[in-house]
């Protein structure tokens, strides 16, 4: 029996199987676990713009992508969400896209890795550590990077990359783009800064191969 009060899905559910085996919760949990998305990040968040209407147009554009997420994924589209301001919805929107995708496919998909959430700074640190001590986290990402339908590259280029980091990222991102797989990038850098940080080859793929949306709204964390 599922403890309904603790179920992260309870606000978006018809509660038909709370006293038995909930196939929806089971499959969604599996998909999120494979995607490396934590329990906190699975909860549905209400997204809001500033009172003065900043980003209204950008949010509508993102909402449109969310509403057509299966088409976005099947076409292998890419999305770059960036803003120099922290906490104005970049990662929330990226997670919302995966949430929308999972909600569309959960009932008809096999139990395999369909999405990945990669916090790029953490990933690069783990990648370096992996040279000396093999990491399950890196193994999981390497096994699924080309299988996952959609990958979130969160906080890409928070600092200037070393050639080791840039080459690894370029190789993975390039392989996914060549394979027609969708990517969502979030960053606090604008196009010019991204080029400086990641180099032209990688930055060009991120900025120019899909939707490029810059947000200007204020930090809404804690609101």
């Amino acid at each position, binding site marked *: 029996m599922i403890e309904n009060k603790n179920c992260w899905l309870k*606000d*978006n*559910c*018809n509660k*038909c*199987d709370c006293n038995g*085996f*909930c*196939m*929806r919760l*089971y*499959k969604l949990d*599996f998909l999120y676990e494979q995607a490396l998305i934590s329990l906190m990040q699975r909860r*549905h*968040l*209400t*997204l*809001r*713009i500033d009172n003065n209407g900043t*980003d*209204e147009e950008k*949010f*509508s554009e993102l*909402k449109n992508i969310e509403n057509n997420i299966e088409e976005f994924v099947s076409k292998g589209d890419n999305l770059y969400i960036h803003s120099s301001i922290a906490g104005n919805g970049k990662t929330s929107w990226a997670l919302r896209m995966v949430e929308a995708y999972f909600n569309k496919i959960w*009932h*008809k*998909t*096999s*139990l395999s890795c369909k999405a990945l959430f990669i916090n790029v700074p953490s990933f690069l640190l783990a990648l370096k550590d992996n040279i000396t001590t093999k990491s399950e986290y890196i193994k999981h990402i390497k*096994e699924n990077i080309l299988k996952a339908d959609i990958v979130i590259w969160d906080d890409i280029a928070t600092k200037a990359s070393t050639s080791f980091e840039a080459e690894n990222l370029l190789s993975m991102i390039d392989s996914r783009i060549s394979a027609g797989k969708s990517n969502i990038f979030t960053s606090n850098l604008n196009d010019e800064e991204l080029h400086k940080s990641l180099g032209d080859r990688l930055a060009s793929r991120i900025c120019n191969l899909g939707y490029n949306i810059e947000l200007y709204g204020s930090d809404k964390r804690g609101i």
Partner: protein
Amino acid sequence: MIQLQFINYILETKDSSLITLNNLNKKYFSNYNDEWDFIDNHLKKYNLIPDKITFLSSFPDFEIIEVKETPQYLIEELFRDYQSRQLSTTFNSIRNQLMNGELEKAVNTYKKAYETLDTGIALQAVDILRDTSRYDKYIEKTKGFNKYYVSTGFPELDAIIGGWDREEELATIVARTNQGKSFLAIKMSLAAAEQGLNVGYYSGEMSETKVGYRIDTLASHISNGALIHGNSSIQTDYKRFIEKLSVKYSGSIKVLTPKMIAGPAGVNALRAFIEKEKLDILFVDQHSLLEDDRGAKNPVEKASNISRDLKNLQVMKRIPIISISQQNRTKTEDGVDTTQIAQSDRIGQDSTIVIFLERKDNLMKLHLTKSRDSENGKTLSYNADFNTGTFIYIPDEKDTKQNEELKSRYEPEADVGEDEF
């Protein structure tokens, strides 16, 4: 000499399949009629070639020699030897007839001998184009699944393989350690008992009590941990269940453990188990815990001998045998195949069905890697709770109808958490 070589070979290898599969009889052993009779009678009575000591006690002058030839060579030479003897008799008759001037009679003797010459490969084969008895079997199958097939306990697996073939099945379930192979086999044995069959379960490791607790869990969904550890909170439910257990199942499950036969079973012991208990289906848990009746020490040879003997046992007894095998350490990122069965490739080759079991947390996957009469390569996923004995099928991408039913069943009544823009 070939007759002597052959008898020495079977005394050494104890391989009775050479005799049964090639329909050998007394006429092939003209120089060793008594020795042959002794071996043949022993085989018929005990299902076993006599060992050398037993044999030599009756034939102390018999010459024991070392035979290094292949079985195929020995069989072919034995047949050739027999043909030569046949022909020499005929030639003597023809020669005498010709010397007496009976030319026509000599020609007829030659023709008759040619027509009746026993090529030695006259097994009792069936002319498939003229024998249509299989149509009657087909008609019977259309009327009664239970007569020809045994449910595996997994309807989705039955839908693919049709269930265990009651006459021609040697299936192997393969997994790494601690994946739930025994639990799966016990669930399958319970399904067979539910169908009214007399089920045999050889447990090379677990006691009959633990096998029993697993059966109880599968049948009642009472916590297996609570049964094993004697948790008093389930006593009332357990008592109620156990009192009705024998009524609930029309079949039976006979468990055999090494303790009951003073040591690990070999295939000959399993044969005795089948005959004594008149089993309809046998589960063997597990391959690596069986003894090799031929006494091989090398693990690969041992596994290979056991596999061959299990195959022969299945062919002779014509009941389904489901055995469990270990999976080797080969990487499985690109999927599984029969080369990943530990110890011997022969196990996969001899099996009509090979199912790999993989379990991570509560997700259990059955990979059908070999199935003689159905589609290979399918994977079935289950939410498996071994503590309560529940297995819930997770439909895959191709189960369109079930997927749509899932969607409509769980569709939220309305979207919540509308965005604010």
